[in-house]
Structures are given as C-alpha cells and as structure tokens.
C-alpha cells in the first residue's frame, strides 16, 4: 500500500534552472525551447542545377522573425516534420530579416523529401548554431574566398556582407571550382558580383564541355591568376573535405597567417547543441566551436581536415 507520507511529488522544471552562462543566440535555452523549431513558410524555390535547389524561407510568427538574427557562416537545423532535420548553412544576407535562403543539395533522406515539397509548405528551423566568420576583423584587408562545389553556399553569407560593406574591404577575389560547368551554382549572380560589387571572379571546372570557355583543372590552378598581398589578406575556404588539405596547404605556403585563414567544416549532426557528439572533431564539436574554424585551430585539432 502506498504510504502518502512517502510518495515523492512530481516536480516540474523551470527556466531559472537554465542559467547558462554562455551566450545563446536568440535566448532559446532560457525559454527552454531548444528543441522547438521556428515555423517557416517556404516562399520560393529556385532550381539551380539538377542536384541543388535554393529555398527561400520566411518565419511565420512576426515576433520570432524579429528575434531571429544570425552571423555569416552560421548554420541552422532545418526540420521537415516526419522526415528529420539536417544541418544547413545559411546562404543569405544577415541584414535580410525577412527571408532566409538555404542552398540544398539532394543527397540524403531528408533533402530528397525536401525536393518534393512545393512553395507554401511549412518547415521548422532551429538555430542559428555555431561560430561565424569574423567579418569585422577582416575589414581593411584583401579577402580571398575559395569555394569548391557546394562550398559556395556558406560563402554566400560573407559574400553578401562584403557586398553590403564593399568600401571596408580592399581587393576581393572569389575562386570557385566545380566538377562540370553545369554544376556551377549561382551563375546568374556572377555578373552582378563582378560588375556592381567589383569582386574578381575566377571559375574553373574539372571537366569542361563543348560550350565551356573558361579554364579547366583543379581549383589550385587558379592561384596562378591572382596576386595577393599575403600580409594584408584573409582567406575563407569551403569545399569538399579533400579540398581543404590542398588549398590550405597552398595558402600556408604563400604566407597567409594561420589565424587569417578560415575554413567551414562539414560533419554529421543530429542536435546542433553539442549533445549528440556526432560532429566531434578532434576534441571539440563542430556545432559549437565550428563550423567556422581558423586554420590554426584546424591544425591543432586532430582529424579536422
């Protein structure tokens, strides 16, 4: 027989118990909403290539929309109810508070499902998570943006930042490589970036086709075209895992200081909050200390690149 004197009462948890000392973007853990997504409406879908689509999202709740801020380089967890959530880097301008843009490649279970949905559908986002590119620190320097394949997606946010603050930066070079000409993303923006924003764009493909007029080869071949004052330069590198080793090694040889080189790493993620440990790299987590690391940290972390 239960003795009422010995029955343990049920206790609920409250927000005071979450006095996390670490800044949490959008104060979500304070509201104990770390697992609650912001509901978003997909307002536009642009098919970029056969494999990639650009999704434009708008947070439904106006208060949440006003609260949502992110920094270039951060990512968010995009959730498609019933299918799961995936980490996607934000590839829109962080001054655009109305819409978010996500460039997504159809590659897994969730992204395949995402490719079947239509405009007007609702998804959820959690985040933003992770570290960002130090855009303020980069001001007054040359910037070298190096992207391989889908690596252009996380680079678009810093690129937008540079475009919006173009007079803060000296020479800006964008080196962009892909496997085939048909896989080059955002080709419709190339002219705008070059003509209006004065960004020197260098593209290269591994295998050209009959209509390809540009260069063919590996992305490292593009370094011959550019001359940068290494002492006054910052570099941002993003691409497939294999690319980092060659590109960063080359930049290191050129003489760009290690703490002026930034990479955006990709890892498997399930929580985005440093709890599931899936994105562990070396002795830290990609979702908290990363995805943006400077090259010095990357060199120190085991098995980062």
């Amino acid at each position, binding site marked *: 027989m239960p003795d009422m004197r*010995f029955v*343990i009462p049920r206790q609920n948890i409250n927000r005071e118990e979450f006095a996390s000392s670490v800044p*949490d973007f959008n104060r979500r853990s304070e509201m104990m909403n770390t*697992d609650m997504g912001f509901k978003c409406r997909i307002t536009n879908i642009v098919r970029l290539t056969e494999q990639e689509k650009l999704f434009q999202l708008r947070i439904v709740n106006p208060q949440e929309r006003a609260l949502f801020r992110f920094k270039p380089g951060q990512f968010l967890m995009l959730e498609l109810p019933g299918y799961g959530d995936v980490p996607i880097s934000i590839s829109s301008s962080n001054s655009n508070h109305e819409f978010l843009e996500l460039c997504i490649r159809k590659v897994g279970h969730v992204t395949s499902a995402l490719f079947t949905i239509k405009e007007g559908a609702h998804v959820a986002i959690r985040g933003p998570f992770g570290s960002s590119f130090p855009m303020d620190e980069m001001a007054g320097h040359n910037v070298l943006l190096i992207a391989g394949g889908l690596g252009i997606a996380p680079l678009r946010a810093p690129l937008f930042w540079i475009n919006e603050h173009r007079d803060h930066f000296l020479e800006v070079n964008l080196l962009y490589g892909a496997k085939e000409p048909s896989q080059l993303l955002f080709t419709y923006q190339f002219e705008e970036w070059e003509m209006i924003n004065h960004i020197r764009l260098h593209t290269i493909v591994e295998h050209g086709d009959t209509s390809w007029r540009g260069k063919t080869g590996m992305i490292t071949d593009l370094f011959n075209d550019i001359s940068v004052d290494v002492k006054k330069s910052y570099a941002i590198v993003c691409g497939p895992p294999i690319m980092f080793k060659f590109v960063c090694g080359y930049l290191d040889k050129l003489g760009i200081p290690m703490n002026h080189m930034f990479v955006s790493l990709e890892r498997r993620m399930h*929580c985005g909050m440093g*709890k599931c440990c899936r994105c562990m790299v070396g002795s830290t987590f990609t979702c908290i200390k990363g995805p943006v690391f400077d090259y010095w940290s990357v060199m120190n972390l085991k098995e980062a690149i």
Partner: protein
Amino acid sequence: MIYKVISKKEFRRFVDLLVKSNSSFGPQQVDMDSRGNPIYQFKQVQSVEEIAFDYTATASSAKHFFLPFREELSRFTFHEDEWEQKISYEAEPVVLVGLRACDISALNILDDVLLNGHFPSPYYLAKRKNSVVVGMDHLPLPDCFCKSMSHHTVTTGFNLFCSDIGDNYYLSINSSKAFSFLKEFETRDPLNEDNCMLAERRKLIQNSFQTEIDVTALPSILDIEFNSPVWEKWGDKCLNCGTCAMVCPSCYCYSVTESFDTNLKGSTREKKLYSCNLVDFAMVAGGHNFRPKNGDRLKYRYYHQHRGFAENGNQQICVGCNRCGRACLAGINPKDVINDLRMEKESCLTCVSSSPART
C-alpha cells in the same frame, strides 16, 4: 550533508515503505553468465525483498533512467497543410535503490555535460529532478578500476548514501526529501565507533582494488599517440557492435530519427542512444565517412572517455566501472588499451618490432 546511523532492519523497513509508495527500481539477479556468475540488472521492484542488496554490479548502468534508449523529443501532428509541434519535458518520479558510487559519479558527470553546457537539456533535467537516488558502497569487482579514476567514493549527486558498517548502515543524507522521510524511522547520530567503522570500511574498499590503470597525463598521451599503431591493433579486433557504449554509465552520444505514425496524422522525433563505434557514426550525406576505420572510431571513444571535450572542460567521462570491458565480445578492455598506449614494456608494439635485442 547530515550523517546518521540506522540499523539494517530499520533500513529495510524504510526502503520497503519508499519502494511501496513510489515507482522504484533496484538490482535484481536476472540470469547467470557462462561461468556461473550472476548477472544483475536494475528492475522495477515492489518490495524490499526483491532487492539484491549484496549485488556486485549491474550489467547495464543506471543512466538509462535518465537517458533511455529511445526517448521522444517532440511530436508533430498534421492537419490539412498545417502541422503543429509539441514538446513536453515531464517525467514521473522514480526511486533508484542501490546505486554504486561509480554509477552516481557517472550521473554527476552527465549532469555536468548535459546541464552545464551551452544548451542545457530539459529532457534530462526533468528526469534527474524527479529521481531519488539511494546509493550503497560495495567491494569492487576484480576488474573495476574506479580508484584509478578517483570515482570509488562519491560526495554529491545522491539523496542518500549508505555505507555498510557491520550491523548498521552509515547514512550520508544529501537532500531534505530523504531527511524528512527518515524522520519517521529510528536513527541516531554517529558515535565515535561508527566513524571508526566507516573509516575502516572505506579503507577496506580502497585496498580491495585489484586493477589499477595509470592515468597520469593521459589526455596529453592520447593527443601525442594519435597515430599510434595501438589503435589499429585494437581496432582490428573491434566488431563495431556498440555494446560498450550501451553499458557505459556515462556515454551519452545519440542519434535523432523521425518517423510517421501509421495513420500519417502525426510523426515523432525520437532520440536513440548511439555508439561512436558504429560504422555510420560520422558518415555524412553523400557517403563520405570521416572515421572510416575501426581503429579511428575506437580511438574516438577513448578520446571521449579519457581526454574529454573542450566544451565540457576537458573532463574525463570514464568512471572506471569496466562494464565495457566485461561486455565486449572481442575482449577489448580499457586497461589493456591504455597500457598499450602508455607503451608499457610487455605490450609496446613499436619497441618490440624495432628493438635490437629482438632482431
């Protein structure tokens, strides 16, 4: 902390009432292994008679009351073109009787990792808050190495901890909840003899450890020996089954999956405990695996267990219960791996092969 002494008979009466009034779990013998040793597990108990107070160690740890194998994170309900997300952080109160010091230490480590990080876990907190932990000390098994990890004693993280001092239990009371329950029972303040007996009991436990691992500077050794052949040697034995992480009292890595209800009216986001030794642990969409080799994954497990992550203050999460070593089907145990890594003479791979005396 308040210290009291209670007779074993009175203690059983107390536990009986506690167990009968709440949903309670305690160690029970569930099976025998091939060598005839009993296998214990934490099972739901209805009365004090069902609890095996003299158990050695349970095969699975007590973490599953706080980190279940499967846990619902949120639910989505669909109607027309809309959906709604619901999350609840509720947990039912449970009483856990008979946890060992290392089990409680592991809970403390989980507290640190899951509640003090960047994003505290409300799911875990709700469960932890609604639990009453009654700990008990014990003589170590021959392969335990809790002492090497300094987790053979525990000072926080429990409501009540009992040390066996002959006819009585020496109680360390760490919560007002436990204190107010005990008011109804006959206890007394410890006398000098009781304190002596407690000191002796502690000494006995301390001196009973047969296995010791030298963990001095282990984090830096793990860093230095990152490319050691030891990892390949043990990795080749590893079967990638993930048993070690399942029985580990402090492994918390997980995987999130989502599934539709069969009527397609809703879906569930579920968290499942995972193991870093499973092949697809670090595999990203598109098929690239960041840790494709057995040795890489095994190394990562030791890295996490004995070096810790920067986010958690580089805290080592291993408590030295050796459940992983006991459960491993391939016979990998932390003692051998760490000794190998420390290049202990009898097992060092590199020295043996290049030693002039050998050639």
